[in-house]
């Protein structure tokens, strides 16, 4: 399959990559603009970054976003792993498929539906809109992706490993702690990172369930962007881009390490 690409094909790929990355670098480029707009580059300045770090309100919002992302990723990973274990233990194929379909509902549902229905749910349950409603919704929509990341690892694990451990006298808890969990760790990490990015990226759901007093970065950017251009956002986006790159690199190394599938793989 490895022929050399024709120049035309190469050109197409280059154009696609250019289009994909141009807007991002465009934002970052103008974050150093002393001119104050996104059209004329007048001179190099770091003022926007300085201003960003002095904007306490925005820093609190960044902090909120990070706290929500980390907490929701952590909790959803725990529940997701439990879910994957439960699904694996189900005997009947039909029950398994039903649970899996239910699991996937939130992945395929449009954000607006999730947001609107959670808004109704929280209002009816009497949960005040704010930190907890946002946290709960982020946990809720991150769980299924964790399940989907962990389940294949569980299924690829040979059942003889568990049988052997049981034969050798391990208790159920020991089996879980010393055999199953170490084996599926790469899946758990992948799930955690996916949950983290889901939470950091989410706008629509948060927009519905966030009250007046609480805001995350996406919601804040939305309201700023509706007012027009301010280069603070550019500076912020440059920082977020670097942050995302770090996440991607970490994620890449986790999945790479995960590849030479360790002992006991069924394949």
């Amino acid at each position, binding site marked *: 399959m490895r022929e050399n690409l024709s120049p035309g094909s190469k050109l197409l790929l280059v154009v*696609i990559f250019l289009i*994909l990355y141009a*807007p991002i670098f465009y934002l970052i480029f103008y974050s150093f603009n002393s001119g104050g707009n*996104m*059209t004329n580059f007048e001179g190099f300045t770091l003022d926007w970054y300085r201003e960003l770090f002095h904007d306490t309100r925005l820093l609190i919002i960044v902090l909120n976003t990070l706290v929500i992302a980390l907490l929701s990723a952590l909790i959803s990973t725990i529940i997701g792993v439990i879910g994957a274990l439960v699904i694996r233990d189900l005997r009947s194929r039909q029950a398994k498929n039903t649970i899996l379909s239910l699991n996937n509902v939130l992945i395929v549902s449009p954000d607006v539906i999730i947001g*609107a229905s959670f808004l109704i749910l929280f209002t009816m349950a009497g949960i005040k809109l704010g930190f907890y409603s946002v946290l709960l919704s982020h946990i809720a929509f991150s769980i299924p992706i964790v399940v989907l990341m962990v389940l294949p690892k569980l299924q690829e694990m040979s059942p003889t490993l568990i049988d052997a451990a049981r034969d050798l006298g391990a208790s159920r808890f020991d089996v879980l702690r010393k055999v199953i969990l170490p084996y599926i760790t790469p899946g758990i990490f992948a799930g955690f990172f996916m949950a983290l990015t889901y939470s950091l990226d989410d706008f629509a759901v948060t927009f519905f369930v966030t009250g007046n007093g609480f805001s995350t970065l996406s919601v804040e950017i939305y309201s700023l962007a509706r007012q027009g251009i301010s280069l603070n*956002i550019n500076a912020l*986006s440059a920082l977020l881009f670097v942050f995302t790159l770090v996440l991607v690199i970490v994620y890449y190394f986790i999945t790479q390490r995960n590849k030479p599938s360790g002992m006991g793989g069924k394949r």
Partner: protein
Amino acid sequence: MQNKFTRNLFFIPYALWIALFVIAPLLLILYYSFFDIEGNFSLINYQKFFTPVYLKMTLSSFWYAFLITLISLLVAYPTAYLLTKTKHKQLWLLLIIVPSWINLLLKAYAFIGIFGTYGVANSFLEVIGIGTQQILFTDFSFIFVSVYIFIPFMILPIFNALDELNPALVYAAKDLGASSWVTFRRVIFPLTIDGVKSGCQVVFIPALSLFMLTRLIAGNRVITLGTAIEQHFLVTQDWGMGSTIAVFLVIIMFLIMLVTGKRKRGV
């Protein structure tokens, strides 16, 4: 006996999640769709949905989603195909995915700058002699930005399908005298149709429900089902009507999933 008890205890968090955050929200949406704006039980929302205003909106929403999906597919398929032929294809794929991890709002914001009256797009048009055009707040900008955002999600499943394709089949077709086009039409495309289907699924459903892009990029000129739901829930506070549209969106979603079938997923 004791085992079974601990096992059920173990099951609780995940089961609770399914009950509270998957099933309950869907039921609540259905329930709310039967109430008018004053909170009386009625079918008026359904009657309203079948008036020309809402039907026209649904149709135009479908039309936009269709265009977005089609264009994404037309760009994504060749790109994915060429990607599978590059050296280090996993790395290139990762580079395609990175922009999809950048916050959606930031990308939309970048395009406000690029497509603005004095933005680069217009300076470019000026240079090649077409002159300044209104780009932002048009159908073109809406579709362009949507395609931009969805392209990675379309490329990923198609790439995976193409990557799994056994090259021997392609060689066989060529040996037997098929032209490149016939090979593509009769061998490559049918064998990767699953990837195309899941790509269309992950683009079409969100494209029906986009709402911040319609506000930021299309300047309220385009109204999708998602925009309508957001409008009813957060602006006019007519939760009943919003829920009714949501019910239809959920039905459409299930229909699309039936059509595009298979449990295989891309993202």
